[in-house]
């Protein structure tokens, strides 16, 4: 029998508007303290009328690491983007299970390892410098528009080899695609918008085959040419790199600006960490504290159990990364920002630094790139002695997945 935990006064976690007010950490903490998992009814976007919420670190890891029991095939976010299991989105890397997943993932992963990404440092620093030069020319500006959007869109465009004059288009298009994740139409809008950018990237791939360059679109186009990827897989993988590489990094940078502008303790801890050369720990702590991607989803392939909770075949289990990253079992004093905390409990398969990038076969392919961008930004802000303060109200967006900030008016002083 399925035991459903009833909770009073918990906001509706099937409604993206809930997240506009902020990440409901307090509700997640109450869920985490209860036995079993909590069930959220939903009249849309699942296969069985609702979804489970996994909020403990270990439960999240268990679900993500076991793609036999918990498939990505119907979608990896709530609401499910491929609810029939065989829609056009089934060839997107996010929605594939091993072994097809490994074949597709390798096409880019093989040229995205730590030794390759480390070589990006000097040109990413140029991108960051250029962005800060431009933004800091004004005393007051919108941090989202001038900084958070610019750095990741330029970085991912360069990684993919998108020419300069198409970079704005790429940034605008990815923001629209991410918004569509909250549209309740079974992935239709998402598919249409992703398809448009996909067409562009397919064209770019054809050009790259004629003029190969040292970029990811060339690598993927070559995999298409030699049959490792089919045309749909190629297109969706390129689009995924683009939107995944943009949106979450953009959200992280947005929140970093907000935290630095509003929280003196975080500002002080940041300066100290950078002075002491602990930038890696600082980046990890910002990522944990912010957790830019709030939650993902999997579907049970059979009747099973998590944390003693009976789960039925076809039930959606959402894994709440924002909650896992505030699990006091793993991060004591979880609501405190502390880059000097003892290293988190190393859980097998999570890279040891929190649940920001997921776990298991789908763990973020771009995590090293993301961390590098953020580290360089923090270092450059520190070197320039930039002090941010608010110049109006920050504004959040309504989104199921992304911890999104849409507006951040700041004023900046330098030196």
């Amino acid at each position, binding site marked *: 029998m399925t035991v459903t935990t009833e909770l009073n006064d918990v906001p509706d976690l099937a409604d993206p508007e809930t997240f506009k007010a902020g990440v409901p950490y307090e509700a997640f903490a109450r869920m985490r303290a209860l036995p079993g998992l909590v069930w959220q009814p939903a009249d849309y976007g699942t296969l069985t009328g609702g979804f489970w919420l996994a909020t403990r670190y270990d439960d999240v890891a268990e679900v993500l690491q076991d793609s036999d029991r918990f498939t990505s095939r119907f979608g990896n976010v709530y609401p499910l983007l491929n609810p029939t299991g065989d829609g056009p989105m089934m060839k997107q890397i996010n929605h594939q299970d091993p072994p097809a*997943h490994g074949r597709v993932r*390798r096409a880019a992963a093989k040229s995205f390892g*730590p030794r390759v990404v480390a070589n990006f440092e000097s040109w990413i620093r140029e991108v960051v410098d250029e962005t800060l030069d431009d933004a800091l020319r004004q005393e007051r500006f919108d941090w989202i528009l001038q900084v958070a959007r610019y750095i990741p869109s330029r970085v991912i465009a360069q990684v993919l080899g998108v020419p300069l004059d198409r970079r704005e288009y790429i940034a605008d298009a990815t923001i629209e695609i991410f918004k569509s994740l909250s549209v309740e139409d079974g992935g239709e809008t998402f598919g249409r918008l992703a398809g448009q950018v996909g067409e562009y990237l397919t064209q770019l791939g054809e050009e790259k085959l004629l003029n190969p360059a040292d970029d990811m679109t060339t690598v993927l186009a070559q995999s298409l040419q030699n049959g490792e990827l089919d045309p749909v897989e190629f297109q969706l993988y390129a689009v995924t790199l683009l939107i995944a590489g943009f949106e979450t990094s953009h959200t992280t940078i947005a929140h970093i600006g907000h935290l630095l502008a509003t929280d003196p303790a975080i500002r002080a801890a940041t300066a100290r960490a950078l002075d002491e050369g602990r930038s890696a720990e600082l980046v990890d702590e910002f990522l944990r504290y912010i957790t830019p991607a709030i939650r993902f989803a999997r579907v049970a392939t059979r009747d099973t159990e998590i944390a003693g909770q009976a789960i039925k075949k076809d039930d959606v289990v959402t894994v709440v990364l924002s909650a896992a990253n505030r699990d006091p079992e793993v991060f004591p004093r979880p609501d405190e920002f502390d880059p000097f905390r003892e290293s988190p409990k190393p859980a097998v398969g999570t890279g040891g630094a929190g649940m920001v990038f997921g776990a298991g076969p789908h763990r973020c392919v771009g995590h090293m790139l993301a961390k590098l961008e953020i580290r360089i930004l923090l270092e450059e802000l520190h070197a320039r002695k930039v002090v941010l303060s608010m110049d109006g109200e920050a504004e959040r967006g309504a989104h199921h997945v992304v911890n999104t900030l849409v507006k951040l008016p700041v004023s900046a002083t330098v030196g």
Partner: protein
Amino acid sequence: MSDKSKVVFVNGANRTEVEVLVGTSAMHAATDNLVGGIIGECGGDLSCATCHVFVDPEWFDRLDAPGVDERDMLEATSEEPTEFSRLSCQIPCTAETDGIVLHIPESQ
């Protein structure tokens, strides 16, 4: 014949010997026994390169040669691969590998 096979993991000065059922991958031999330095993020899907090992030269030739996909993914390891590099999720523990010695890269 025994249905167990032994694997020796060497991590700097640390040496850990584990015994696993024949057919287990060397990656799982490590992660199931909490041997540090082998992460095995993707669970053997051959898509993460966090299970990199240097096979002891004495043992290297006794293994089947790595496939194309494995050679591709060796490009994505944290530590520079050598001629003795393998991804341990692609090494099945068998009667032939009983006692195999695998060195764990420092930076992994």
